[in-house]
């Protein structure tokens, strides 16, 4: 406790004395002043310089709080007194710094009543930089040390630090943006708060109209979204079940290829599936042309709208259902089925009366996962939606359309959030009550019975054509990057590849270089942070007991239920102004990646933690190790496979995310997915696909490397089993 307080005070003090308090637009290297003059510079100076040389008295807590903390750590006072001092200085310093950050913005006082209170403010301040970020963070650690000293978190400073930091991070990067954004729903067009505004927008006919049943051209987007979600949920569950049953019980040698096939859609950048579908089923697609030349039938534009979006989403999300269900099918205890067969049940009876009912929670899980994923999907509806609007695209156009309407965007987000959370809670209730699958890891001597012949035939009839279609889709779609004009002139060419990745005169002159490098860089930065945060919070949530844990856990999960578009808008809304002026930097994209993908890492981390006997941690504690030792020496090594999976998953997600970041990218931080989207929108399919191919190749290489690394681990009997990469498999 004392060490933690000492170190955090030292770090905070050093940051306040040395690191630039504000965000410097051109980086520290660009400090224009020679010698030590930058220490007093209004732009580059640290807190100390700002207070002493620039008269920015409101930064005084940045100096005083660490100094007081240091004093408390060094003075020979009893433990409770020291803890109380830590608590006081850390909490007060943190509170004052946050308060000044929001009180004084780019135009002086942020609200008139502050001006009335303190008099006019001539000065102004931009977003915080290294110093401004590190000092409050270190003060938070000081606060945590104080809490630990008072006996919270079992008196362990590490646990307390982790808990306080995670709580802060979740508050800043998850709760605050969403609350701010959803607050917009209650503002009228002028920006004033008006409770009626929400109801006015909610009552909008464009949301709830059921006119299409009565022959009107379209229904409300809420119904569209819900209908699509239900269809996708049901479809992916059925397909996923067929695949899972075949792979586990089908007595086919298909397991490996099928598993790889299911990885493909996960590493596929958005739009590529949609493009492939247009190529096959579009009006000038292969199927349509064949139909018109062979049968003289004009198939027309049916692919644009519900059918196309549904098809694309089925392709995209079936792997997720498969990954969920294969775990469930493998987890079924064969003994139960053997028991059934010894009670004179035919294989068919057994399947119907034992196997399927046992699968029910898994099926519910898969269905709701498909439902939520479908609602959050942005890429497929925008390519194939045509006149079929869904909430995710509506929100996008409410923000960027010719009539930008933040209130409408917020209202739609609220509806979407309500739908997603509703599904999430339904799933929690359904699966929490009765999970039949044991993850105790105890051996089961039984042998799984083969599928009844009829069921097997049905599964084959569903799965094989679908697998074939998937392969065809990918071949066709990806070939688009290597032919002259996609859909028209199939002369092979590397033109698009060269256009995207040309290197001339030692310079990367290709159009896609910038965005691909940015993407890989940001993904590579965010993946370790995501994985680390996920594992640390999984450890915290499953091992530590503290007030508010449940609320924190719930807040962490919010970003999973919220569609990416909503997150993106919320982030832009929350981080465009000081003190957290992240918009336009890579940091906002990294933060978005991290907190959007955190829930999945967290869930798989918690699943893995559940398999580690808590007495291992306790043994470490009683042997004199602190929380940090238990975490680093015991939990981390045992979680290595889960960490690896989390890392790869975070990386892959960061490489393929579009909806969340489309509003966050700027010239400097354009991402490959956004590049692809813009090319698709402009009809440059060749270029888009060429970039997509490179991205897929990169990710497959990553996955392969990860497999190699995980393969070489030394783990004893109680080790955690490597969970498959489950995008939210255990989550929602």
């Amino acid at each position: 406790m004392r060490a933690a307080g000492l170190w955090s005070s030292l770090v905070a003090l050093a940051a306040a004395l040395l690191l630039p308090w504000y965000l410097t637009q051109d980086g520290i290297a660009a400090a224009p002043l020679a010698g030590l003059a930058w220490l007093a510079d209004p732009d580059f100076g640290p807190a100390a310089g700002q207070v002493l040389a620039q008269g920015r008295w409101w930064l005084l807590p940045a100096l005083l709080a660490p100094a007081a903390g240091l004093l408390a750590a060094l003075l020979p006072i009893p433990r409770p007194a020291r803890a109380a001092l830590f608590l006081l200085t850390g909490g007060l310093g943190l509170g004052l710094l946050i308060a000044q950050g929001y009180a004084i913005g780019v135009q002086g006082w942020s609200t008139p009543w502050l001006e009335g209170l303190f008099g006019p403010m001539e000065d102004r301040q931009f977003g915080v930089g290294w110093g401004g970020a590190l000092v409050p963070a270190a003060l938070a650690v000081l606060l945590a040390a104080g809490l630990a000293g008072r006996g919270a978190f079992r008196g362990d400073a590490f646990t307390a630090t982790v808990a306080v930091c995670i709580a802060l991070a979740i508050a800043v990067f998850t709760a605050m943006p969403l609350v701010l954004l959803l607050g917009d729903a209650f503002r009228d067009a002028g920006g004033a708060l008006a409770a009626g505004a929400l109801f006015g927008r909610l009552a909008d006919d464009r949301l709830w109209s059921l006119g299409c049943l009565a022959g009107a051209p379209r229904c409300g987007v809420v119904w569209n979204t819900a209908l699509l979600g239900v269809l996708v949920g049901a479809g992916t569950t059925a397909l996923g079940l067929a695949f899972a049953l075949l792979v586990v019980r089908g007595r086919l040698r298909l397991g490996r290829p099928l598993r790889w096939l299911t990885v493909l859609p996960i590493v596929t950048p958005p739009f590529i599936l949609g493009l492939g579908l247009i190529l096959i089923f579009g009006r000038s697609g292969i199927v349509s042309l064949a139909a018109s030349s062979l049968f003289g039938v004009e198939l027309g534009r049916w692919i644009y709208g519900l059918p196309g979006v549904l098809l694309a989403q089925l392709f995209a999300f079936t792997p997720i259902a498969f990954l969920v269900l294969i775990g469930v099918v493998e987890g079924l205890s064969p003994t139960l089925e053997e028991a059934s067969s010894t009670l004179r049940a035919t294989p068919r009876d057994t399947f119907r009366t034992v196997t399927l009912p046992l699968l029910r929670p898994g099926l519910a899980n898969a269905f709701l996962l498909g439902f939520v994923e479908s609602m959050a999907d942005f890429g497929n509806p925008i390519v194939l939606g045509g006149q079929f609007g869904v909430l995710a695209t509506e929100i996008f156009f409410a923000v960027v359309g010719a009539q930008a309407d933040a209130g409408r965007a917020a209202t739609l987000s609220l509806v979407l959030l309500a739908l997603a959370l509703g599904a999430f809670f339904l799933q929690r209730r359904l699966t929490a009550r009765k999970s039949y699958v044991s993850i105790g890891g105890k051996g089961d001597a039984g042998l799984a019975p083969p599928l009844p012949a009829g069921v097997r035939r049905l599964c084959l009839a569903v799965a094989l054509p679908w697998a074939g279609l998937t392969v065809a889709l990918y071949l066709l779609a990806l070939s688009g990057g290597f032919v002259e004009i996609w859909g028209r002139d199939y002369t092979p060419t590397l033109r698009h590849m060269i256009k995207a990745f040309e290197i001339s005169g030692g310079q990367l002159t290709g159009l896609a270089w910038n965005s691909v490098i940015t993407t890989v860089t940001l993904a590579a930065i965010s993946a370790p942070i995501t994985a680390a945060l996920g594992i640390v919070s999984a450890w915290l949530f499953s091992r530590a007991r503290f007030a508010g844990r449940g609320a924190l856990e719930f807040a962490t999960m919010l970003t999973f239920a919220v569609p990416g578009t909503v997150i993106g808008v919320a982030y832009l809304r929350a981080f465009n102004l000081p003190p957290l002026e992240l918009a336009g930097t890579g940091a906002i994209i990294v933060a978005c990646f991290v907190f959007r993908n955190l829930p999945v890492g967290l869930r798989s981390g918690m699943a893995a933690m559940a398999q580690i006997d808590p007495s291992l941690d306790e043994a470490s504690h009683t042997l004199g190790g602190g929380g940090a030792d238990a975490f680093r020496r015991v939990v981390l090594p045992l979680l290595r496979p889960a960490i690896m999976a989390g890392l790869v998953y975070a990386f892959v997600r960061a490489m393929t995310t579009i909806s969340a970041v489309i509003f966050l990218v700027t010239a400097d931080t354009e991402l490959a997915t956004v590049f692809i989207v813009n090319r698709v929108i402009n009809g440059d399919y060749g270029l888009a696909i060429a970039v997509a191919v490179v991205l897929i190749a990169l990710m497959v290489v990553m996955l392969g490397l990860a497999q190699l690394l995980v393969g070489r681990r030394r783990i004893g009997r109680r080790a955690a089993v490597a969970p498959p990469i489950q995008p939210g498999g255990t989550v929602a």
Partner: protein
Amino acid sequence: MSRAAEVRFERVWKRFGAGNVAVRDVSFTVPAGTLCTLLGPSGCGKTTTLRMIAGLEYPSEGRVLIGGRDVSALPPAERDVSMVFQSYALFPHMTVLENVCYGLTVSRRPKREAMGAGRAALESVGLAGFEARLPSELSGGQQQRVAVARALVLEPSVLLFDEPLSNLDARLRRKMREEIRDLQQRLGVTVVYVTHDQAEALAISDKIIVMNQAVIAQEGTPRELYASPASAFVAGFVGEANRIPARLRRLDDVDAEVSIGEARLVLPHRGLPDGPAELALRPEAIALLGPADPAAMLEGAVSKAAYLGGVIEYTVATPLGEIFVVSSSAGSAPGAGDAVGLSFGRHGAALLPGSREAP
């Protein structure tokens, strides 16, 4: 290793959430250098008590003192205790030696020193030569010894055992408990030992604390508990006991005359007033006599007889209810249906003070 410390609970409560009291107002002292057992059925609060000594739980109220120092709010690492877990909690990704050296490693002891101490500890539990194995490559008994060695290597002033033998088979259990007792005697360390097995508790303890429903039911030496159980619960939990209705008449400050049917017996009255009382009668203290034997204090008929090798267990139906008797199998043995007489003396019988409120 003579830094053994006294462990002391002062009016300790532990609540988990509202209304769920795991430990209720418990006070006791474990003298330094003794082996004290916390005995009780599952859910009685004994493990929670142990974990509060370790620092894995914190008391909701009251104080925990180790060696006179109040450790109530200290984390486990600052308490100078070690614990052997029911599941052993051996780190599966570390070798046996790494496991044993763990405590020294995290205390930043020099590696050479840690290794040396680890090897010595392994040797002391008879596992020299197993250093490089993984825990999964050891048998249950070997894993148990590694867990003990790992706890010992830190030379703690208090050593805690949480049902350490429950995962072992009966023979190994007996052997291991003797080893633990030897070790404790040799090192003179304070040991607090949790178990639900009364035989184990009786065999190794200097002192036993019997817990039931979050409170201490009785504490004392094994002999005290066996000879003078404070309640029907303790009588039934520490050894077997027949509970027989009786009448009591005080003779002096210590003794009372107890009437069981026609028979009379003089026993310490243990503070009970005159009137009806309940008597705990150990089955092995009852002599089985022939029918109409003049020494018989009770008449009855054998309703069941189970041959267990060295002994035979009888259930005898008597006017006072069914009585359970354990008798040597040597000599002639009555069978089911045979009429028998029962007799018993001062030894093996005790009045139960708590009997009126105990279930």
